[in-house]
């Protein structure tokens, strides 16, 4: 028994001065401009005949009222069915005379000022976060039994063990590339064996710690920001607070400890795989056998090269955890903010890691390492 569809229509009978509304005045049969009258029509006296409207819903009712508003003298609806009258009354009651409030829009100058102040405020907020984190975490660390070691182990598994395949593959490939690119010019001087120096020094001192930091920032830092940000939206962090549990202590501290443990280990793993990649290239393309390679290594590098690389790892770990947790906790209001926090945490961690790496270079240079 489905009735045939009759789209909403307006017909004008100019001789009798009647505007007839017909059909289904319901949302799906309405279209734009339906209730717009020309200027000429707006000056005449009309009778508004609505007796042949079949279905009416609130959208249709609103358009009818709009139509009526345009006509001079607001003619009454002719032939209005009782059901429709009640609906029209309901809509009329709730109709909004004034337009909805406009959101505030800033001009270019104001936007620039606001952006500048935002950056300053963010820096201050980050420092405040660091202070709060330190004051929350230090007392815990002084009583090692109070630390949630179970969580720490879980985080090490997530951030460390699960990162091994991707980190191993990328380090291996980096070793391959460095050995290949560096080996070609060295070969011209017959100094093939120096590949060992080139590879081990770049890998141990720079590439392995940086690669590890970048992968951890992208994989784990983003996850931290998203997790904490979502917990802010769902008020889970507030719930923790009401339960007398510091959100920083339960969320951020285990992550910090976990990365402090995992990142040096990951860096060592990257060292090994990177050098392995280089060894394979040196062996297959530049006639440096595995034995020669390994024999040369102790001569090529001082043990300090290894330690110089490893010592960076905990610093990078602290940067990544601090930045990503800070952005997570700074989330407010919307789920969109979670996405932004995640992006920011990755970009800023990598940025700060590279800045810290540069600072390390200067310091080691001064120390003669």
């Amino acid at each position, binding site marked *: 028994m489905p009735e045939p569809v009759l789209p909403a229509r307006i017909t004008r009978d100019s001789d009798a001065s009647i505007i007839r509304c017909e059909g289904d005045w319901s*949302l799906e049969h*309405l279209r734009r401009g339906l209730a717009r009258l020309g200027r000429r029509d707006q000056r005449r006296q009309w009778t508004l005949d609505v007796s042949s409207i079949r279905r009416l*819903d*609130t959208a249709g009712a609103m358009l009818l009222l709009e139509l009526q508003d345009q006509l001079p003298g607001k003619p009454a609806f002719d032939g209005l069915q009782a059901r429709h009258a*009640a609906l029209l009354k309901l809509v009329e009651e709730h109709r909004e005379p004034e337009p909805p409030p406009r959101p505030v829009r800033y001009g270019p100058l104001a936007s620039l000022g606001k952006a500048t102040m935002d950056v300053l405020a963010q820096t201050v907020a980050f420092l405040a976060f660091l202070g709060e984190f330190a004051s929350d975490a230090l007392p815990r660390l002084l009583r090692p039994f109070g630390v949630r070691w179970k969580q720490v182990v879980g985080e090490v598994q997530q951030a460390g063990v699960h990162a091994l395949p991707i980190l191993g593959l990328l380090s291996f490939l980096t070793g391959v590339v460095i050995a290949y690119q560096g080996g070609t010019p060295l070969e011209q001087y017959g100094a093939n064996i120096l590949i060992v120096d080139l590879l081990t020094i770049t890998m141990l001192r720079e590439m392995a710690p940086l690669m590890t930091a970048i992968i951890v920032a992208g994989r784990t830092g983003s996850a931290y920001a998203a997790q904490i940000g979502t917990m802010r939206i769902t008020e889970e962090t507030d719930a923790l607070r009401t339960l007398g549990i510091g959100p920083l202590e339960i969320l951020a501290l285990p992550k910090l400890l976990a990365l402090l443990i995992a990142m040096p280990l990951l860096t060592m793993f990257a060292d090994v795989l990177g050098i392995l990649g280089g060894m394979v290239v040196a062996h297959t393309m530049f006639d440096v056998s595995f034995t020669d390679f390994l024999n040369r290594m102790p001569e090529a590098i001082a043990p300090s090269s290894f330690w110089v690389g490893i010592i960076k790892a905990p610093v990078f770990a602290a940067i990544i955890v601090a930045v990503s947790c800070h952005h997570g906790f700074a989330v407010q209001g*919307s789920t*969109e903010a979670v996405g932004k926090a995640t992006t920011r945490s990755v970009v800023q961690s990598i940025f700060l890691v590279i800045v810290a790496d540069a600072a390390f270079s200067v310091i080691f240079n001064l120390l003669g390492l």
Partner: protein
Amino acid sequence: MSEPPIIRVQGLRTQFGDTVVHDQLDLDVHRGEILAIVGGSGTGKTVLLRQMILLDAPRVGRIELLGRDCTRPRARDLRWIRERVGVLFQHGALFTAMTVLENVMLPLLEHSRLARATIQELAMLRIRMAGLPSAAAGKYPNELSGGMVKRAALARALALDPEIVFLDEPTSGLDPVGAAAFDELVMELKELLGLTVVMITHDPDTLWQATDRVAFLAEKRVVAVAPVAELVKSPQTDIQRYFSSARTQDRRAH
């Protein structure tokens, strides 16, 4: 009733792991009625609702909406249904990145052919009909109180002038005056628009005042569907226990 039911659930079985939530569940909803689904906590009301609004597909059983088989709906049917069914989620589920006005405008922009200005006016109408002040339209969901979120979500559920609306605990979290006004509004819309309403509720005032029939969920199925005044006289122990609590008595007279 000669007209076929607007919603028909047949032989539904729902299972999570080893726990069977529904077994051989049948339910018919007639056009233009307000039907409440009640039952103890964990009897599967929300799960049933999710299947009726076609978010979860039933493993076993059949669901018909508006005369169409929706057990395994095709994309085109689904869109047709979505335009005719509105849902108010238990916690509102407003889009947090949009203002209330934008939340209500979204389905209209997506599904209607009206001009933007008209759509905006229509959205404002819904917002005010749902009992929100105009000033709330420009606010973001996290700036609203719990009750205001409910109203904004109702405004969005009604945006497309649906034929069926599903309400999950619509009056929980509202003050008594607000809850009564909410019931009034739902009844008024039912009268005027021929709306069919399916709601989950624990609110006795709503049960007694606003519903035409009440479906009682227990023992993994709908054990009774009747007007509330009849339902309380049912000899079933579960129903007796549910309604013997002072909270669920008819308080209208008091």
